[in-house]
């Protein structure tokens, strides 16, 4: 560094460099911020060194250059660097630190975004839990009750839709298989709504039962369901009984 500094009193960090980017003079502000260094490159973050090497040339225009500096306090400081070449071997450089507002705002945005993300995540977890519960309810809405030696009574509860049938189907078929059942009585007394896809799946379940050699009987059909179930009767020759009592009587299970 030269003995008489021309930059010392500059109110901003300022440097004088030679064409190899060696520091030949600096302002007190610069020294306070960065300490004493031999080269501009020593002040810079590794990701900014190539940029500085590339742009600090006498023939390059003097547009401001954004660079990251390493401060004495080990922080990274983003700054606009303005420069003017005095001659081919000397350049004056003024460093204008960027205000940190944009970083702060960006950090706030990140926090907000994270919170949104967390809320989303909680909602998703809640949804998964609800779905699990719903599935359990579905599975419980077709208890298989053994009556007599080879008869199974299956009262269906709630709405009849494809999800419900999917949920109870394998359970029913397993039960029928394991208990060596001859007749499966599906009681619809506690059934509420019947969806179109529910009827289709119900039909395929009866088909499976038939293949397993099991007779399916439907009972407890309400007037509002009769129309929807009508075609089952024709298409599958399913047996319908008006009440559970009449089924049990016909099977000689009650007198």
């Amino acid at each position, binding site marked *: 560094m030269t003995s008489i500094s021309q930059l010392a009193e500059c109110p901003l960090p300022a440097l004088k460099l030679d064409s190899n980017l060696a520091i030949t003079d600096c302002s007190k502000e610069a020294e306070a911020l960065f300490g004493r260094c031999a080269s501009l490159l020593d002040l810079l973050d*590794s990701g900014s060194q*190539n*940029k500085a090497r*590339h*742009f600090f040339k006498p023939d390059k225009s003097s*547009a401001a*250059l*954004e660079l990251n500096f390493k401060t004495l306090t*080990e922080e*990274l400081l*983003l700054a606009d660097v303005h420069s003017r070449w005095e001659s081919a071997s000397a350049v004056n450089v003024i460093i204008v630190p*960027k205000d940190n507002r*944009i970083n702060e705002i*960006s*950090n706030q*945005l*990140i926090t907000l*975004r*994270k919170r949104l*993300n967390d809320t989303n995540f909680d909602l998703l977890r809640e949804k998964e839990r609800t779905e699990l519960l719903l599935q359990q309810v579905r599975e419980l809405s077709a208890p298989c009750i053994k009556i007599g030696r080879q008869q199974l009574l299956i009262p269906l509860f709630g709405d009849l839709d494809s999800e419900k049938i999917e949920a109870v189907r394998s359970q029913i078929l397993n039960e029928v298989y394991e208990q060596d059942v001859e007749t499966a009585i599906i009681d619809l007394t506690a059934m509420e709504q019947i969806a179109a896809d529910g009827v289709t799946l119900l039909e395929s379940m009866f088909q499976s039962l038939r293949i397993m050699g099991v007779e399916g009987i439907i009972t407890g059909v309400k007037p509002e369901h009769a129309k929807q179930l009508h075609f089952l009767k024709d298409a599958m020759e399913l047996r319908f009984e008006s009440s559970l009592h009449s089924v049990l009587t016909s099977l000689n299970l009650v007198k």
Partner: protein
Amino acid sequence: MEIQPKELADLFLAGEEEKALQLVQQYLQQHSQQDLYHQLLTPAMYRIGELWENNIISVADEHLATAVCDFVVSAAELKRESIKGIKRKAMILGPEGEGHYIGMKMVSSLFKENGWQVHYMGPNLPLESAIESAKRWKPEVVALSAALVYRLPALQQYAAAFRELDFKPVILLGGRAVSIADPSFIREEGTVVVKDLQQLKDWIQTGKEADDDFHFSIG
């Protein structure tokens, strides 16, 4: 013609999130999520870095571009159906002082795509809360990410703390800082260094560490 990283970078910088999302969704009809991250979004963000090095854009522009990129990553992720069944657990985070998080989000997404359950904790997470969450949730994998080279010591410190946990999670280290670091960097038992998403995918699917991890490319 299919969208190129350069074009996408321009859309990010122009804040054109609708257009960017539309093109990305078109791209996704022919490509996997992983291609999207590895071949398109990462190069687009690296391109943003080049533009900065060429003094064409400023850090303020990078903020906008990141926000748009983030939007695209999140929106593209919602389309994916999760695989049912018992899920393995991964926790993903960046150490205190690390603010770059786009890479971490991609890592989370890749785990999810492979049927894992993921806790994405974000960047800049203090060690104490990271450890506390891990104790509660007991993830099988803890993935740590750093883009800033100055965060490497923190990464080592975090990794050491996670190694102490009694349920012994596997610790994955990745991110720009890790992939350009000295190969001698952290070769501890239970710590896996992963260079990029392709290696991560291989690791997820085979459980084996890439054997070329001593030949890092400078990215």
